[in-house]
């Protein structure tokens, strides 16, 4: 059943106040997760707090330090932003996979993250970019790393009255780049069976100086696979290093069997995608 109340505050303070007032209050960004859950009876909010009228949550600013992006900016705006696309091709790739054009007109990073689905496409891509979020609540603001924010399926660090205000993505180092890949039966409008994000930074000799790998849909939350990342460091991405990374990624995955895929399949494919995403990130970094 639809909630009995709907509010559309125009600043963060008012949003916090509304969210604090009722235990059943829920932020509403694009609604592309929340409205589906509502229909299925999986969510029963009694107050919607619309975030799309709050200027700070709709703002985008890009400078030499990186990107600050409001939590309610629609995916379409991110995907169509040429500067963002050229700096974080993997993150944009992941964002572009969310739903369809229609969905992307509404869907947001904030919703993708706060919905806390282990299969959320943008999240592993955010993690490997070293992105952080700013949370605002009755106690003030705090900054949290993406990988620390989700604690289980549908569970986050969000406290009562708190919301995600903005994303902060540090500017990529020189000779570094990211990539994201996923597997789904249908090419769009489907939920990742496995997703992998990789970010690599190369030294002047073309060796991997530092790496980050994050896996989606193979654990209760998106997870970093540091062992896989380490397997790549120091290499020029030779087959042996890639194989080691693949094995490490499979090992750090703890998937379950569900209708979309068995644990065995996910463990196997997460290694394959780790290799492939690493290759793409490597080529992109080389080209920079």
């Amino acid at each position, binding site marked *: *059943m639809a909630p009995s109340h709907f509010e559309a505050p125009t600043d963060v303070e008012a949003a916090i106040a509304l969210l604090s007032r009722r235990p059943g209050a829920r932020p509403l960004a694009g609604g592309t997760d929340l409205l*589906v859950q509502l229909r*299925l009876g999986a969510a029963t909010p009694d107050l919607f707090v619309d975030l799309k009228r709050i200027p700070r949550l709709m703002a985008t600013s890009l400078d030499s330090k990186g990107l600050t992006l409001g939590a309610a900016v629609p995916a379409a705006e991110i995907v169509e932003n040429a500067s963002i696309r050229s700096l974080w091709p993997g993150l944009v790739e992941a964002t572009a996979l969310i739903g*369809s054009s229609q969905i992307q007109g509404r869907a947001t990073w904030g919703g993708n993250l706060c919905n806390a689905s282990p299969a959320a496409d943008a999240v592993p891509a955010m993690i490997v970019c070293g992105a952080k979020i700013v949370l605002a609540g009755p106690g003030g603001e705090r900054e949290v790393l993406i990988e620390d924010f989700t604690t289980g399926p549908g569970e986050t660090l969000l406290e009562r009255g708190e919301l995600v205000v903005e994303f902060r993505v540090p500017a990529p180092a020189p000779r570094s780049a990211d990539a994201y890949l996923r*597997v789904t*039966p*249908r*090419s*769009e*409008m*489907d*939920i990742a*069976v496995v997703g992998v994000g990789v970010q690599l930074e190369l030294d002047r000799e073309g060796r991997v100086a530092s790496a980050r790998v994050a896996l989606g849909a193979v654990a209760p939350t998106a997870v970093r696979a540091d062992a896989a990342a380490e397997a790549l460091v120091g290499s020029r991405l030779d087959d042996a290093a890639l194989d080691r990374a693949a094995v490490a990624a499979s090992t750090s995955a703890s998937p379950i069997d569900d*209708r979309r*895929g*068995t644990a*065995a*399949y996910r463990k*196997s*494919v997460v*290694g*394959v*995608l780790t290799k492939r995403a690493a290759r793409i990130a490597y080529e992109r970094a080389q080209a920079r």
Partner: protein
Amino acid sequence: MTGTKRGSTGQIGARRKRVEDPRLLTGQGTFVDDIQLPGMLHLDFVRSTHAQARIAAIDTSEAAKCPGVVAVYTAEEIHGFVPLLPGPAELPGLRAPEHHVLANGHVRYVGEAVAAVVAEERYTARDAREAIRVDYEPLPAVTDMERALEADAPLVHEEFGSNLAFELPLGNETAAALEEADVVIQQRMLNQRVIPNTMETRGIVADYRRSDGQITVWLSTQAPHLIRSLLAELLDLPEHRLRVIAPDVGGGFGAKANLYGEEMLAVALAKQLGRPVKWIEERQEHMLATSHGRAQLAHVTLGAARDGTIRALELRILADMGAYPHIMTPLAPLQTAAVMTGCYRIPCARAEIQGVFTNTTAPDPYRGFGRAEAAYYLERAIDLLARRLDLDPIEVRRRNFIQPEEFPYSSPTGYVLESGDYEVCLRRALEKVDIGALRQQQGRLRSEGRYIGIGFASYVYRAGFPSLPKLPRTGFLKGGWESAWLRVDPMGKVTVLTGTSPHGQGLETSLAQIAADELDIDLEDVVVRHGDTASIPHGNGTMGSRSLAVGGSAVLLAAREVRHKALRLAAHHLGVEVDAVRLEAGRAFLPGHPERAISFADLADLSYSFLDLPDGMTPRLEASATFEPHNWNAPFGTHVCVVEVDVQTGEPKLLRYVAVDDCGRAVNPLIVEGQIHGGVAQGLGQALMETVVYDSEGQPLTVSFLEYATPTASDMPTLEVELTETPSPLNPLGARGVGESGTTGAPPALVNAVVDALAPFGVEHLDMPLLPERVWRVLHEAGAVR
């Protein structure tokens, strides 16, 4: 063939854009949900959440108290005025369960209607529905056909003592031929259960006028006249006071050719309550309560000589009847048996059919109904045979094709194929894909560890059913004929009425082309009307790829008659013999005497004035015609699918799809290609991703688009479609069906391609849908991936 002349306006064969599209694309179509009547009530249903349970109690008291609720019904309350639904067609030995509109103390599938609510507002009805409490005593359920036939399986209908609905053998003897065959291949093949998912779900508005007993029904249906007859018969209503309107209908695929319980109840309630009643199906309801498709399992046995000549084919078919088969449900496997030998000369063929009750939604016609299943089994079996004999699958097909001079050809299962030229489609398809180069590329890539597969499917099916005196009662199908009315108004514009009921096929355009061509006038001067039993005396609707070949032929016959009458009138007016007059480009004239002419519009005007008519001629240029085909026509074609399988992830990627199809005379090739495109997409959907999944308790797990994937545009390669035109001798247009060609060709072409790609790993068969994990698993088992 045929006496069809091509008019100078050249309408037949012209790639005209669909005249219905501007209306539909700009939101000006009228669908059932657009119908709003004063005082209209809204109907909603409580549906079973159990696959099998006894209903201990239903508490409707809370719902009845909701403000705005007009009435709440359970089986007991409708008993007096709503009859049982019609059972399945009467096959010999078939056990037909009672099918109640609302469950009568026992539910047998998830989604079965249990109670109904009528309220002033749609949302009130929905809220009230949620306030109804049903007490279930769950019982074990069975959703798998093989399990259902085991001795200790839960019984869907206890009174029958088993889940076997019927058994039927068809065809001739195969045992000896199989015995003598050099090779025999055997394979179990699943043709999985799919959901039609029409873009528009089902819906109805029913209105009863107390003053004169007139009932008007707006229904999202493929067959308004058949539904009218059924409603009249079942509800004991005078048929002439019953009007059924199929307004714009957003797809049917066979699932809207039947009368459903919700619909019959809506009509009965409109009469009972004296107010209009509307019901619009939700998507989730559609996935549960509208008939499903396919749901067949076959054990295929094919015997052949060493050179690939096929000797015998045997199918042991399990056909899912669901819990309550609809009228046509048991006919699906009969259709499969009828065309099981496809385009091939197979002297011995036999089908052993078993219909099986399960705790599921009943399957019913679904684009390709029974025949697509047959093509799938056979085309897969031929590839298995070619592999076993180490022969080229193309050669095996060629070697066994029925040759053009062998027609009419009687198959061992009793189907007489009228004509065809299978070789032509195959050849064109091979040229189009450049098979030589493609195979070289395949070999080269294989050595690089990339796996390309090439899959072929040569199919034939039967379309445009004739009247079937010999078949047991097929319920409400009254005949295979179709009717048309054509009238010219005083300004020379033409209205065509058709008894077909198009719902996306573009017949408003192609039927207009037939009339315009025959009368040699502009397409813009013809309007086609359909789907209203008040203006169209009778018809058999749109299903089974019949509307153009059969309905179009009726239009042609009516147009011919009007043309002759126009010529006679022109001759009278010009004072010459009929033979001297020509009708062309919107006027009648005397060749060689351009001044002795009369426009078609003036002729039309003249026809309304009694005084100007020749003796004995009735006023008005108008005619009605009926066309009855004496056999099914046989559309055929060859599809070639090229895939690359990612052996690490199991993902099949479509590289190319070539379809060469023959629908005889293509009245509008653009529309024909559109039918192929849609059908191929739908067929690839079945092959790649669509499937209904039940858990061990019989709960369907695929009840929203979140869990049930259908392909989107981005899943489709560019389709390369070509038409060959081998006219059918069965109708004056020379047309064959086309609506089901895509769903018939695509599944075997795709699966054959994937299996071909995986040949180096020894993979011989995979059941649909070829989800990445399923493909990965066989590779994993073959040791190809970790």
